[in-house]
């Protein structure tokens, strides 16, 4: 009787599913694309980086059939810079995929630019999402080379699942700050103000990293918040404050810096009691471990640290 509209619903649902499937598929698969194309563009002008020698080593082990002659030629190649860069360019030219916490989007995108500039012929693709989401994806076999998490708990999940090679390196820390709509209409000046009658604040749910940090501050200060909403991510909190739905919210310092004039940040001293440490590590599933390590080195090196610092992150350790 009503089969035609029902068919329409079914068709719409099918199309929706298909579209969603294609979207995530391309995201996951993009890591392997372009692996061959940039090989030709290896520039002889680039100096041979220390990681280049490692890369050429892996390249020879991959072509182990040719035996000692290849190994010696590779070793010899490191002495003449032109030949060495050609070798390292060919093997480090692959695209690496970096799974990184959503809060690293701006900084890692910038670091990615530096990486491309420093390693001609190499490319890096990012997948930004909640750290826990990313670990779940990695456990499900998602192909990636580097994982950067927003807290040590999540990285522990990855190391426990034996996804990471070696020990992850802490590269930044982040702390919480109060944000309010521009001009702070509710007059929030301290953490305790959030618990005041009539203030509707939004925080992260305890299940997500920013929420566990919030919980730590609550425990440390003895102030119990009664939020109007416990959001699933720090960006959800920020959005509720930016749109003026909430009087205040608790987000990372970096989110507040990034939001600029759309929010007013109210720093509070107690935030020092809940510092989130960001670790990064090379994944066991990486087919291009040398290039992955080069990216990690860039993040932990002075250039990467400068980018992170400018965004509001503090140095680790």
């Amino acid at each position, binding site marked *: *009787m*009503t089969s*035609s*509209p*029902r068919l*329409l*619903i079914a068709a*719409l649902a099918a199309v*929706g599913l298909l579209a969603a499937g294609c979207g995530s598929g391309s995201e996951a698969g993009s890591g392997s694309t372009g692996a061959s194309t940039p090989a030709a563009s290896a520039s002889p002008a680039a100096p041979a980086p220390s990681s280049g020698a490692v890369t050429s080593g892996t390249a020879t082990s991959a072509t182990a059939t040719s035996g000692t002659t290849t190994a010696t030629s590779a070793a010899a190649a490191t002495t003449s810079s032109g030949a060495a860069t050609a070798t390292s360019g060919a093997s480090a030219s692959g695209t690496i995929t970096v799974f990184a916490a959503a809060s690293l989007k701006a900084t890692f995108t910038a670091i990615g630019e530096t990486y491309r500039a420093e390693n001609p012929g190499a490319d890096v693709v990012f997948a930004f999402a*909640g750290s*826990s*989401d990313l670990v*779940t994806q990695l456990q499900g076999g998602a192909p990636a080379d580097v994982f950067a998490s927003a807290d040590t708990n999540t990285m522990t999940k990855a190391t426990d699942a034996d996804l990471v090679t070696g020990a992850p390196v802490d590269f930044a820390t982040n702390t919480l700050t109060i944000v309010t709509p521009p001009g702070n209409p509710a007059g929030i000046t301290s953490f305790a103000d959030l618990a005041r009658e009539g203030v*509707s604040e*939004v925080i992260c*749910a305890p*299940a*997500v990293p920013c929420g566990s940090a919030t919980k730590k501050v609550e425990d440390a200060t003895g102030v119990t918040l009664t*939020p*109007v*909403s*416990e*959001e*699933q991510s720090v960006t*959800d909190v920020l959005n*509720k404050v930016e*749109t*003026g*739905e*909430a009087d205040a919210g608790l987000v990372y310092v970096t989110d507040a810096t990034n939001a600029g004039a759309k929010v007013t940040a109210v720093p509070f001293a107690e935030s020092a009691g809940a510092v989130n440490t960001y670790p990064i590590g090379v994944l066991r599933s990486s087919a291009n471990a040398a290039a992955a390590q080069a990216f990690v080195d860039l993040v932990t090196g002075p250039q990467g640290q400068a980018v992170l610092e400018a965004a509001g992150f503090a140095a680790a350790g």
Partner: protein
Amino acid sequence: MAGRVRQETATLTTSPSRSSRSPEPARRSRRRSGSLSGLPRWLFVPAAVTAVFILLPLVAMALRVDWGNFGALVTSESSRAALALSLRTALASTVLCVLFGTPMALVLARGSFRGLAVLRSFVLLPLVLPPVVGGIALLYTFGRRGLLGQWLEVLGIRIAFSTTAVVLAQTFVAIPFLVLSLEGALRTAGQRYEAVAATLGARPTTVLRRVTIPLVLPALISGSVLSFARALGEFGATLTFAGSLQGVTRTLPLEIYLQREDDADAAVALSLVLVVVAVVIVVATRTRQAEGAL
């Protein structure tokens, strides 16, 4: 479908006990030829793929359920609060869908004025919009600084972060399902009986109450059940517009999404609960619809 299988096995088991074995093969061959008439045999291959494609993920999920702790996982305080809130809000939004969707379906099916086709497209829009877009739209309508919300705020009514916001989000995404089901039924039912009732002196409201509504009651019921199912599964608009707070705005889909962050077992167990509820609802709708068609 289950009914038919049962019927089939019943005939198979009872037939040998009967003295006459001859009618059975005849009947079976007739059924076989009947099922193939007009349908090429190869069509069953992609159809089977579709069935597997839909069922397999559900089976895969069911296999991952930690059955030993299933009870504990789905009856935790937060899970019960989420399920109760989901059922409450979905019921409320279904009532709203019926109250406001039915007149809309009648206008779309029986009305004739300029812009009807455009109106029809707009009513169907929530069906194709990403739920998060619906949530953003609602936020800028009923939010504290929204088009209507700022006036409601003056009156002391706050919708954001309330259960009301959840009901609004669910109604927004579910109402096209009711309108669509009902409008289709109204069109196929035609207007003969209404015309007769009118010639016998019944006023339009009487015709609507005594003739039209009873005529499309099966479709109205199936449409509301479908709306209920859609409301129960609503996620994106709720998260964007209503927020997430246990017992107030955190419905079952939101709870599942949150649990997934730190307790994957609980997320899977709750997903299964949602699937079971959805299956029960969909089966109920299909049965109703079959009755309606007869």
